[in-house]
């Protein structure tokens, strides 16, 4: 194994700053999925360009990029929430992504205003219900707004307000309906919590499968993961009991968030970086993404995984500019503090 032999050498080099190999692309990412590393390997095989990775919390990575200034070795920043992309854009750290290929694949709504960043995959924040308890007809007209109705008292499972996906959802409500309305709504929602917010999205879905709650708010791909059987029979069986409902179909549409990436202004490997992003949007890469993370693809030539496609594909998406998630994130957090959303 080459890696092991060269490791002491690499460490010595690393002691004195960042290595620099002629053909490389340096990525700071807050997506840490195992399956992504196969994409990096494929990219290297295809182009001969070395992919170097640091994965950490996105906010910390942003701080590191900021502090590194013009010396930053980072070429690409990848994250799983549009708010973070907006934040980096707002700090003026991104540069324009110039690529016809990319322009043709990514719709403008899923890009920065001046192509500072692009979406690589989509996820919807949807409602999960127990199919033994409800039919899709019972719930088909359900909007996010209805979740504050006292009808659902002690019936809703959702994770804590520390979670970025929840912050983005609330930020989108503020952008759509204003702060006063959203605050009233959130207060109602908190009253309807089936339990103190806990666990990740998956444990909300499991709570519904186990009838600890009637409705769970969580990201769409979690159900794909559970149904894939990769997480064991317990989760597979729980997953089989629940179905997805796409809320707000008669209104603004279902809340969509993205995994996205941008190229940094200080990038020293700009053309490699563009190549990498183009690669991430190719059919092969997108196929790999959707089959492993169960996100929705950006490249329309690729179908979502069957596990997730079965719940419907032609649902209406909220076409709010995702940059709003970032703009209203702070307001959303404070609002959740005020209504006591733990």
């Amino acid at each position, binding site marked *: 194994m080459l890696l092991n032999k060269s490791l002491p050498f690499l460490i010595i080099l690393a002691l004195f700053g*960042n290595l620099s190999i002629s053909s490389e692309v*340096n990525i700071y990412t807050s997506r840490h999925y195992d399956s992504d590393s196969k994409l990096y390997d494929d990219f290297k095989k295809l182009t001969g360009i070395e992919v170097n990775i640091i994965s950490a919390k996105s906010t910390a990575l942003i701080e590191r990029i900021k*502090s590194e200034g013009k010396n930053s070795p980072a070429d690409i920043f990848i994250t799983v929430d549009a708010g973070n992309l907006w934040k980096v854009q707002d700090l003026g750290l991104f540069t324009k992504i110039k690529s016809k290929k990319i322009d043709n694949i990514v719709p403008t709504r899923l890009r920065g205003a001046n192509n500072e960043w692009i979406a690589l995959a989509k996820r919807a924040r949807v409602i999960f219900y127990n199919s033994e308890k409800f039919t899709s007809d019972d719930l088909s007209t359900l909007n996010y707004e209805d979740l504050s109705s006292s009808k659902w008292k002690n019936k809703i499972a959702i994770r804590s307000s*520390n979670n970025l996906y929840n912050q983005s959802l609330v930020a989108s409500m503020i952008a759509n309906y204003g702060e006063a309305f959203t605050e009233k709504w959130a207060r109602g929602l908190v009253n309807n919590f089936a339990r103190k917010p806990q666990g*990740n999205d*998956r444990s909300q879905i499991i709570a519904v499968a186990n*009838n600890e709650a009637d409705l769970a708010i969580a990201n769409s791909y979690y159900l794909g993961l559970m149904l894939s059987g990769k997480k064991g029979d317990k989760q597979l069986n729980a997953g089989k009991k629940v179905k997805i409902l796409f809320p707000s179909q008669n209104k603004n549409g279902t809340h969509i968030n993205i995994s996205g990436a941008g190229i940094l202004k200080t990038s020293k490997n700009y053309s490699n970086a563009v190549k990498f992003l183009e690669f991430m949007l190719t059919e092969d890469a997108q196929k790999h993404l959707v089959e492993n993370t169960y996100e929705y693809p950006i490249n329309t030539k690729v179908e979502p995984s069957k596990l997730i496609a079965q719940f419907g594909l032609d649902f209406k998406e909220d076409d709010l500019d995702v940059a709003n998630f970032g703009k209203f994130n*702070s307001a959303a957090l404070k609002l959740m503090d005020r209504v006591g959303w733990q």
Partner: protein
Amino acid sequence: MLTLNNLLNNFWKLIPIFCLFIFISPLIFVLGSLLGEFNDNWSHLIEYVLPSYVSNSLILIIGVSILSLILGVGTAWFVTNFDFFGKSWLEWAIILPLAIPPYILAYTFTGLFDSYGSANEIVRYLFNLESSFIFFPNVRNIYGAIVVFSFTLYPYVYLTTRMAFLNQSRSLMEAGKLLGNSTRLLFFRLAVPLVRPAIIAGLALVIMETLSDFGAVEHFAIQTFTTGIFRTWYGMYDLSTAMQLSSFLLIFVAIFIFLERSERSKMSYSYANSTFKKTDSLKLVGLKNFFAFLFCFLPLFIGFILPIIELLNWAVFFPSENFLSNNLISTLFNTIVLGVTAGILCTIFALLINFLKRFHKSWLLDFSSQLLTLGYALPGIILAIGIIKFFSFLDKSFINLLLEVTLLGSLIGLMLAYVIKAYALASNTIESGFLRINNSIDDVSLSLKKTKLEIFFKIHIPLMKTSILTSLLLVISEVIKELPATLILRPFNFDTLAVTTYIYASEERMYEAASPAIMIVLIGLIPIIFLSKIIRDSRPGS
């Protein structure tokens, strides 16, 4: 007059002082945030969340203090004074939970005790109960967190207290016995008050680690001061307020340490002798024997055996091919190299600083080394931010002008983080080691025409072998577990076991996290087992 010769002679004094200055710089960068503006977010924080952050954190540390005192002091008392079933192995096995990071115990706790967790499933299976029946109480709350922290951190109290019990003047205890005190009275009236400084030294470590933790409290969704820091940063994109909050956390800990120190200086704190004779341990029989065994075994069971069983359960049923196939060797190698290097650096540094303090009473030296111990209480990622700011300052003002390299993203940053983070562990151990060496020994050596440096190498170091090794091992086991600072400061493509565990665990992919978590525990066990051996060997009379 300062001649070159003079300068060279003082070189060995200047180096540690220079290092000390480097090491506290990141802390200064964090504390410096207090000089900045306090923005509008403060009024929001104060009105809505700060009271609950503070009260939750206080409840947490009070609960953890009480429980880890009971566990740590209780077990130390039993194993030093009594003979009971299993004592010979419990004596050292009691510290094994140190190998389990609190966040891993938290993950396994929810895996076991959630409504559909393994423990509840087993109870249901055994008693043939309905699937809605939940036997164990919910652990995702502050009480669960108190249990998690206490059962992983009590060994710090056990280690310091046991050492102090062993050093306790035997004649004093005998005098107590002759005066007709029962063993129980002796414990509360004499033994505990006498070793109070040692107990508090261990407890300080427990409290600081509890306050700095993020992983476990986040997993249990408890809103503590520390989670508040992150929420402010991540959610409001407001790093400066987050750093100001961290500074207040540091100030709180500083006040605590100051009070403890001034309290300690009021009582003369001396270990009777460097040599001691075996205290006769009382042989327990019957119910007392069983109770003593149970009392010492329970913390080991909850803090070590139980989480290992659950991790093995996950790892066996859901093997993580990815982890085992790919990077295991390099990840393992990284973890060990970092741990050992940091252990050596930290220990040498603590030796030098405490040696200097022994000969030069300087408030500046005292103050700055005390400041450095606060690093242990700082949440890892805020420490990392301090380092990032400090490095980017250095890079921009000096390094880049001279060289084509940056300090940021180099292993130097990681090392710096580890030294700051673990200095308290090293310093506490080394300091008490120095205290145990009679000052007159130095005086006599000086009169025998030995320089201070010769005394250091020929007298102090050989006499402190145990303390040095203990410090080394505590730091290694801490670094192996360290997570948040590693995550953000590491160079490209550089993984450690804790990082690999976290990457899975942060998304509650516990099955994949199990294999690296077991590796952390196994690697962490190596220093702990060495430490256990030291404990065994330090049994008086043997």
